[in-house]
């Protein structure tokens, strides 16, 4: 692993002998991170497995189907989803700038960057809901649609709905962290942990976007 800048004085990964044994035996902080951060990482891993199961279930029914709908025109669907991807990626940049501000002890900077990140999340939700309403208007339901395999709606709304729920929860979570930071309630670790969650939500979209949208564009 490249040079870390360990916040805590815990033996480095490169050590041998007694020091390495102590680190692996548990010690006070075997992974050299706080318990909140470790907790969020473990949640992220389990949530990654949840989303993987959803994506694989979607791929399973799609591969098994001889008439899977591929309804997305470039305008508006693919263009809309591409803009949503850019917004989510940009909100990850503002998030990481917020974490950086918290490491530098700049509290007003943290609040500013977190508000920018929340704005990105809200914009993402608004564009996504508008798209949902458009599809519902075209007659897509959970187990019925005008184009083909009736499971299209269930897998589409289930997958993107679970993701949208994560974005919405993330906006609330970041709001709480921003509010608490402005009042001096939270440490830089709390901001960093909320950042892990936000980046993960962004990461999941990096798989939903190609599998659900790009692979279902009308030309493909």
């Amino acid at each position, binding site marked *: 692993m490249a040079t870390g800048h360990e916040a805590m004085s815990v033996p480095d990964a490169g050590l041998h002998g007694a020091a390495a044994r102590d680190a692996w035996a548990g010690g006070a902080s075997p992974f050299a991170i706080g318990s909140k951060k470790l907790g969020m990482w473990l949640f992220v891993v389990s949530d990654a497995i949840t989303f993987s199961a959803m994506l694989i279930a979607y791929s399973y029914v799609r591969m098994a189907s*001889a008439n899977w709908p591929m309804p997305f025109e470039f305008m508006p669907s693919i263009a809309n989803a591409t803009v949503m991807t850019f917004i989510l990626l940009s909100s990850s940049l503002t998030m990481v700038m917020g974490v950086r501000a918290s490491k530098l002890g700049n509290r007003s900077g943290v609040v500013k960057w977190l508000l920018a990140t929340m704005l990105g999340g809200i914009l993402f939700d608004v564009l996504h809901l508008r798209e949902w309403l458009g599809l519902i208007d075209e007659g897509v339901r959970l187990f019925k649609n005008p184009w083909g395999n009736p499971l299209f709606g269930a897998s589409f709304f289930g997958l993107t709905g679970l993701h949208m729920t994560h974005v919405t929860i993330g906006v609330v979570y970041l709001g709480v962290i921003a509010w608490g930071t402005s009042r001096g309630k939270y440490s830089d670790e709390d901001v960093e942990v909320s950042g892990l969650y936000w980046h993960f939500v*962004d990461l999941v979209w990096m798989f939903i*976007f190609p599998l659900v949208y790009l692979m279902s564009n009308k030309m493909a």
Partner: protein
Amino acid sequence: MHDSAERAHAEASKRTFQFVWGWLLALTAVEVVLAYQRLEIKLMLTLLMTLSVVKASLIISYFMHLKYEKRSLVLLLMPAMVFVICMMFVVFPDSVRLYRQALR
């Protein structure tokens, strides 16, 4: 945590973050262009998934900071997750069977 070394690191990281963000946007644009090429579906899926794994790795390594954590943390989190996800692929032979049945 507010010493000059930390500030220098923060300045360097700001450029890194912007650089990674630029790459993520560029790879997304590549994916969209790729989606409109007339490619065989397996090749298309492989290319899109490869690009997505690259993007996910960039996010995990830099935005989620895992590149700078201890190796023991990476070993705790990543191999088990990848293994579990790969095990789920066990369902795909069945979906191929159903597809052939649907064609008949």
